[in-house]
């Protein structure tokens, strides 16, 4: 039956004018966005259009004492006209104003970087207008060694940080003055060459990002269009009441909604494959495996759209929800994936799109792939299960629609009422806690970014976690329900924490560290569960809250 429903849905969609128009628009957008985005990046880099700084090519003449990795990086800036000059010649030209800055890097600059030793860079400026511009750019370049992006690139080449000491002199300096007398400023710079490759990877990050960003932008389009198609398909059946006849069909109700979802998923997969092959053909991407993380991302978007469709009673409501959720998911997937090239690669794997960058960079490991797949896949499957559950409820089609909070005990009781079910519910409820905590965290970050906000966030996380665990223990009437929920919550939280921090910290240490929060969750929920059994839920809440709060405070203070 599912096959027949899929076939019919596909036929309906392909014969729909809406789909044809959306497909053509999508294609036009994709072929437009690549050159436009490339041009935009190039313009940004040259500073010719958007930057207020002078953007003329080779506008700033500067000198350096020898060719080294630093000179290679400076050369990447079109604004500089960099010349290799002996020290005497360089200082003479600086005095005469033929160059505006002269850089003296340690003679063994590259070797020192390889050996991870401290390096000194001296920069002399004259007092021309251009020298101020030069200083601005050179500061940016030198400081750029320490930015997160650079650091991450180096980290991925198995390099530990070294320090560079940068010494500036603002005004023109006569030959008699010694560099050591200059104004000094230390810039700790975690940068170094690749030990494996034997040379510094001097590729500028913003250039390397160019391609991946385009891929992400391009590939997100079919995902969102497909979500829209699914919403349209499901909600229109409600509005036009054609769905009533589907419900009368001799099949299980879940087959109808899964059939619809799979039809849209199939179309999306075809589109992704098509776009990936096109981009591969024109040399915009280098790995056809990019298809897989994109399909995973599509699965996530489609399942979220499915949930919205099933929940919504009409187009108006679904449009509102789709807009909000898509903005959030776009920000989450796109924003998180960018962390892949920063210091937080492990965290970035929450977004399947990070794997696209990983594949393009050629450094996606098997472990990262597994960690990249797990969150999106598990969240998608939970969303799908929830959608099917709601679709099977008469009231979501024929109304009046019940409140979602009222459904939670019923949803949880579907999983079971025993202790093992409580454990599983504890695991699942971690997702709910994460979503709420991220939501509150973002709100506080943007609207109450202060110590008060931080305090509110600190307390609210405890409240959220304890309340969600309480909901998870509702179907189980046993006095031990709380312990099992707490155990599930703690274990799964550990899995996710381990997943996020695995590559940052030593795993054995992590496992040891995570035993304590597991016990805390079991203890706080255990007490709450027991007191609920004794009809003293409020007291239970209070004690659980205090225990959890004290533990979190200890952790924060100690770290």
């Amino acid at each position: 039956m599912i096959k027949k429903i899929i076939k019919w849905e596909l036929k309906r969609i392909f014969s729909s004018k809406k789909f044809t128009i959306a497909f053509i628009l999508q294609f036009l957008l994709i072929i437009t966005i690549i050159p436009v985005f490339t041009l935009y990046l190039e313009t940004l880099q040259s500073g010719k259009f958007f930057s207020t700084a002078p953007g003329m090519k080779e506008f700033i003449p500067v000198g350096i004492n020898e060719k080294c990795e630093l000179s290679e990086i400076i050369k990447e800036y079109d604004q500089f006209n960099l010349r290799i000059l002996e020290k005497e010649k360089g200082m003479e030209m600086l005095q005469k104003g033929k160059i505006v800055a002269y850089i003296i890097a340690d003679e063994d600059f590259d070797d020192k970087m390889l050996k991870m030793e401290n390096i000194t860079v001296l920069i002399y400026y004259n007092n021309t207008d251009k020298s101020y511009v030069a200083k601005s750019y050179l500061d940016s370049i030198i400081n750029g060694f320490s930015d997160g992006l650079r650091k991450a690139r180096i980290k991925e080449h198995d390099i530990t940080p070294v320090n560079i000491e940068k010494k500036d002199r603002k005004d023109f300096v006569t030959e008699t003055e010694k560099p050591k007398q200059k104004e000094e400023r230390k810039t700790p710079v975690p940068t170094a060459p690749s030990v494996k490759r034997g040379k510094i990877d001097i590729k500028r990050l913003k250039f390397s990002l160019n391609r991946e960003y385009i891929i992400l932008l391009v590939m997100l389009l079919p995902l969102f269009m497909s979500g829209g198609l699914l919403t349209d398909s499901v909600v229109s059946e409600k509005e036009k009441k054609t769905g009533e006849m589907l419900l009368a069909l001799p099949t299980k109700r879940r087959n109808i909604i899964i059939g619809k979802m799979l039809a849209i998923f199939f179309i999306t997969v075809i589109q992704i494959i098509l776009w990936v092959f096109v981009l591969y053909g024109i040399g915009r991407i280098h790995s056809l495996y990019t298809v897989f993380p994109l399909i995973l991302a599509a699965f996530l978007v489609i399942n979220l759209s499915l949930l919205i469709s099933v929940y919504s009673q009409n187009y108006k409501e679904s449009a509102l929800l789709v807009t909000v959720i898509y903005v959030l998911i776009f920000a989450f997937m796109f924003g998180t994936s960018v962390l892949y090239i920063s210091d937080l690669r492990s965290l970035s794997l929450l977004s399947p799109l990070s794997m696209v960058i990983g594949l393009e960079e050629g450094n996606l490991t098997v472990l990262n792939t597994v960690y990249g797949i797990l969150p999106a896949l598990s969240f998608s499957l939970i969303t799908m299960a929830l959608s099917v559950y709601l679709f099977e409820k008469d009231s979501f089609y024929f109304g009046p629609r019940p409140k979602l909070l009222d459904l939670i005990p019923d949803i949880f009781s579907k999983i079971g009422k025993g202790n093992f079910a409580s454990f599983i519910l504890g695991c699942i409820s971690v997702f709910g806690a994460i979503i709420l905590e991220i939501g509150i965290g973002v709100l506080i970050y943007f609207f109450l970014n202060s110590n008060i906000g931080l305090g509110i966030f600190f307390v609210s996380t405890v409240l959220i976690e304890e309340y969600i665990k309480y909901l998870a223990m509702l179907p189980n009437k046993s006095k031990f329900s709380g312990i099992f929920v707490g155990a599930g919550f703690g274990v799964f939280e550990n899995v996710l924490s381990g997943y996020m921090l695995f590559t940052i910290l030593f795993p054995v240490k992590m496992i040891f560290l995570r035993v304590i929060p597991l016990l805390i969750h079991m203890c706080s929920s255990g007490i709450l569960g027991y007191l609920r059994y004794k009809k003293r839920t409020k007291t239970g809440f209070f004690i659980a809250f205090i225990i959890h709060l004290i533990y979190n405070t200890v952790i924060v203070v100690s770290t």
Partner: protein
Amino acid sequence: MIESVKLTKRFGNLIAIDDLSLKIKKNEIFGIVGPNGAGKTTFIRIICGILRPTSGTVYIDGKDIRNNAVELKRRIGYLPEEPNLYLRPTAYELVRYFADLYEVEKDFFKERAEELFKLVGLYERRNSKVESFSKGMRQRLAFVRALIHDPDILIFDEPTMGLDPATSKNIRDFILKYRKDKTIIVCTHYMEEADYLCDRIGVLNRGKLVTSGTPAELKKLIKKENIFEIEAENPENFIKNIKNVSIIETKGDKIIISCSYKELGEILEKTDGIVAIHSKIPTLEDVFIELTKG
């Protein structure tokens, strides 16, 4: 046989069907009548497996709809109140899609589709898009869709609602022509339609079964069997003076009452200002109003 046993359906706090027990015999046309919100549509949706009972159940030939929904749904042809058709495909494509979903064999489908399209007078238009059809044509097409898998139970929810008299008559004729050895449930607002079509009728009000029986039996239910239309000079005064008499309806200065001749005599003795008295044969509509008032 279709039997509902202590059937209850709630939507939140709203009780749509309340402890409803009812038997529908094999091969009969059973009418379900009742005012708006009586629970008629909810009841037939439960029989069709579209809704699930909150408690109680429905048995079809002894099989519980809750446990055998997929199997029993194959035996049911359902025509909802509105045709609810997909508009983009042609009539033929639409019917073929539903035939596929009901796993109708290809050879049988061809013959069946031709027969049904001819029966409802849409054979010439079978390759036209549904969106080009009028409301009456769509309703007829919905008939084809409901019957394409040759179900032995047919359920029609307000089959003639909003249609012109000629099309309504056509639809009623289809139902009678098609009944053969089918069990048919017709849910309707129109008492004349129920009277014309149904072997037996169940009256629903506020989710409960008020009564059931043949149209003749129901007409006899009206108290003491006699219906009188009384024209009074002062209707309000007249109503105040009559007690223990069932007032079916008041229309301006006319009052329709149900009572025996003896009671009518007593009324005439007591009351002045009666202009005229007409004896009236009870209709199903009178029964409906009497049973569902208040």
